[in-house]
């Protein structure tokens, strides 16, 4: 405190509060590190910010605004709640747009060759081949399930076409202990972690097999064992929940993080703001991954936000962020690995914006040719296909061949077709599954309802569907 006063030239008003703080930069170009209000890590004695919360509760001890000049007398600064801010006599508005958009990290060029000078995490053959095979599995599963819906065998389906690289590369870059809070276009992560085609089918068809118990509409997968929280329909609700999961992981001291996905549209929800803000304030280890695929059903990003995409929003919340080419599996893999390490080691949130394109329709309830040109879709499908790019790189390394490709596709196709056939004919969940899991234990009113229902079924068997096992 004494030396601080010695630096100043003008006579300061006595500060009424007794706090010690680092010598703050007079122009405040960078925010000084502040003490975590949650005290999880030892931090150096911090600045004004660390006492922000106490100040508000200290009745009667109002901070006096102090003006002082520093040694070279050039700029002045003032201490507002929230920190010291330098001032300027020039009235300048921060422009709504920068000249250059935030550049996008990329490793492979359009044809799948590594760009000169690029830095990335080298993949070994086993991981690379597994990644590619998973991408193919995802693609084939999507294609055939989509067709099944069109044939009337499934009520609903939603593909991840065009986003296979994001799905698989992210999954490969994370640890199996990381808890995933998906939106709905990330089944590839389950696939990578071991969810079988048969399990996907049984959820979609609502059979008694698998773990779904026929509770949810198709594509709302979930698996506690694979650390994949069940897909929830309302958009972006998983974002603040991820901050909560991360908080829990932090309290457990686990070396894992929460990973929350959203699309470009999801960033418009209030929950996005709350989650980002909160995660930053609580210093929760969440990795926010935004799949900016250009479309939210029929709303293009130009109508979704006017910012430079989603990556720029990170800084507004005090969150480190990066923009990556979502159709470049190597870039996604490297970026997610680095981001995850930051999240876990520094115990703070990071935002990754993966730019990509939604090649498919939003879902089987949508025909996107109604609001975008077929030419645009075809272009992304053919010449900017993430799978083609990655395959070229894998094959260039001598790890894959056309023949293996044909074999794989044939095998997978048969596997998926068979899984659908089996699931279609499988038994539906039994009557008891109508009433269980509403609460932890079956309450008396539901026991009575079940009893009464069974009695009614016995009396009027002809009125009830025969395929509900009792």
């Amino acid at each position: 405190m004494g030396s601080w006063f010695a630096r100043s030239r003008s006579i300061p008003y006595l500060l009424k509060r007794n706090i010690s703080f680092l010598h703050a930069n007079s122009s405040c170009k960078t925010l000084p590190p502040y003490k975590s209000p949650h005290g999880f890590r030892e931090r150096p004695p911090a600045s004004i910010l660390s006492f922000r919360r106490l100040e508000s509760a200290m009745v009667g001890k109002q901070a006096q605004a102090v003006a002082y000049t520093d040694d070279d007398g050039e700029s002045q600064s003032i201490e507002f709640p929230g920190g010291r801010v330098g001032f300027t006599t020039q009235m300048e508005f921060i422009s709504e747009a920068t000249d250059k958009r935030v550049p996008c990290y990329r490793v492979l060029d359009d044809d799948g060759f590594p760009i000169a000078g690029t830095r990335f995490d080298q993949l070994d053959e086993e991981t690379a081949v597994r990644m590619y095979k998973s991408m193919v599995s995802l693609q084939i599963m999507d294609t055939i399930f989509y067709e099944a819906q069109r044939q009337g065998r499934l009520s609903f389906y939603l593909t991840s076409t065009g986003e296979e690289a994001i799905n698989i590369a992210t999954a490969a870059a994370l640890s199996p202990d990381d808890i995933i809070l998906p939106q709905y276009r990330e089944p590839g992560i389950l696939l990578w972690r071991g969810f079988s085609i048969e399990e996907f089918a049984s959820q979609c068809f609502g059979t008694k097999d698998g773990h779904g118990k026929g509770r949810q509409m198709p594509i709302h997968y979930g698996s506690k064992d694979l650390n994949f929280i069940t897909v929830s329909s309302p958009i972006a609700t998983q974002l603040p929940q991820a901050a909560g999961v991360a908080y829990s992981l932090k309290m457990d001291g686990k070396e894992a993080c929460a990973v929350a996905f959203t699309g470009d549209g999801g960033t418009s929800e209030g929950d996005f703001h709350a989650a980002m803000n909160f995660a930053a304030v609580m210093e929760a280890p969440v990795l926010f991954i935004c799949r900016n695929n250009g479309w939210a059903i029929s709303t293009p990003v130009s109508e979704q936000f006017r910012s430079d995409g989603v990556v720029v929003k990170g800084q507004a919340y005090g969150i480190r962020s990066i923009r990556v080419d979502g159709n470049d599996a190597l870039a996604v893999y490297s970026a997610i690995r680095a981001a995850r390490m930051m999240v876990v080691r520094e115990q703070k949130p990071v935002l990754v914006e993966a730019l990509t394109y939604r090649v498919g329709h939003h879902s089987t309830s949508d025909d996107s040719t109604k609001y975008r040109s077929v030419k645009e879709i075809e272009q992304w499908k053919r010449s900017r296909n993430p799978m083609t790019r990655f395959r070229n790189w894998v094959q260039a390394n001598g790890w894959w061949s056309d023949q293996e490709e044909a074999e794989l596709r044939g095998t997978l196709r048969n596997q998926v077709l068979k899984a659908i056939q089996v699931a279609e004919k499988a038994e539906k969940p039994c009557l008891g599954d109508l009433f269980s899991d509403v609460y932890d234990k079956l309450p008396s009113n539901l026991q009575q309802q079940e009893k009464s229902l069974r009695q009614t079924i016995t009396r009027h068997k002809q009125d009830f569907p025969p395929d509900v096992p009792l």
Partner: protein
Amino acid sequence: MLGILRQRVAAKFNYALNFEQGIGSVALRAFSSSANKMTVRDAINSALDEEMSADPKVFMMGEEVGEYQGAYKITKGLLDKYGPQRVVDTPITEAGFTGIGVGAAYHGLRPVVEFMTFNFSMQAIDHIINSAAKSNYMSSGQISVPIVFRGPNGAASGVGAQHSQCFAAWFGSCPGLKVLVPYSAEDARGLLKAAIRDPDPVVFLENELLYGESFPVSAETLDSSFCVPIGKAKIEREGKDVTIVAYSKMVGFSLQAADILAKEGINAEVINLRSIRPLDRSTINTSVRKTNRIVTVEEGFPQHGVGAEICATVVEDSFEYLDAPVERIAGADVPTPYAANIERMAFPQVEDIVRAAKRACYRSR
């Protein structure tokens, strides 16, 4: 005479509030000074304290719960005792902190989320219903949500339409939630402890005006393992002529009404619901089968209210026992006005309950 009584009661609430705030000293447990009386505020505070002490996974979250000691001083002293990791002051985003609480519960923590009033829970209602209430079912039992949402519900005094709504009926209609409505200090302590220990999401509807009210408490109530079973109503006063069913503050009014009715020879049975979901239909029906007449009392709006459900359940299960139509007393079907005189007219008063009971007994003019 009744008017004076009511004013005295109202004044006592306000006095109690000011008195507590004025004290300045931290007295976590009122019973330390008076062994058998406890305010609802201290009951809730002590329940939170004991549960947080017993289980390190329990933590509190909400606006002003930490440094400010709670908007209504319910969480007084908890920040000092448990630290900022377990008593979390949140930014102003109900949707945000409710979502975070639900997420924390998904991963095994036991959050107690405070809404400054349940009116603000509407900003978070998607997370309460679509996430908390339905997750266990939708995930086929894989994701349980052991969360408690608590805060003042219903009318206070002179706070206007956006701070006075009762949400018992809305939350009570949702499967997957448990909805509790404590009245006395014993209710508050026992039900909150049960709620925190419960693996299902619980909505715990308190009442601001009851916070300062003192109730006698037994030694059993003060024990740290004390719990009140969820889903059982309590018969506060036994009677044989008419059943009055109420919850929260209206229980107090019903007991006063019962005293007045007793002077006129009507022996009323007063049931304190304690739990909106699950609703204790069996206690209600058993009582109606004894008295043959029923009056329901609630502060909330009449349409689709709690009284409507009670009426339906009584008609379904005990129709032959009814000697008179079910009487429903509810708040006026208007957004709550501010001015004290018309606010008073928007909520049930003791004499409304008395008149309804008399109507049910065919004793009205």
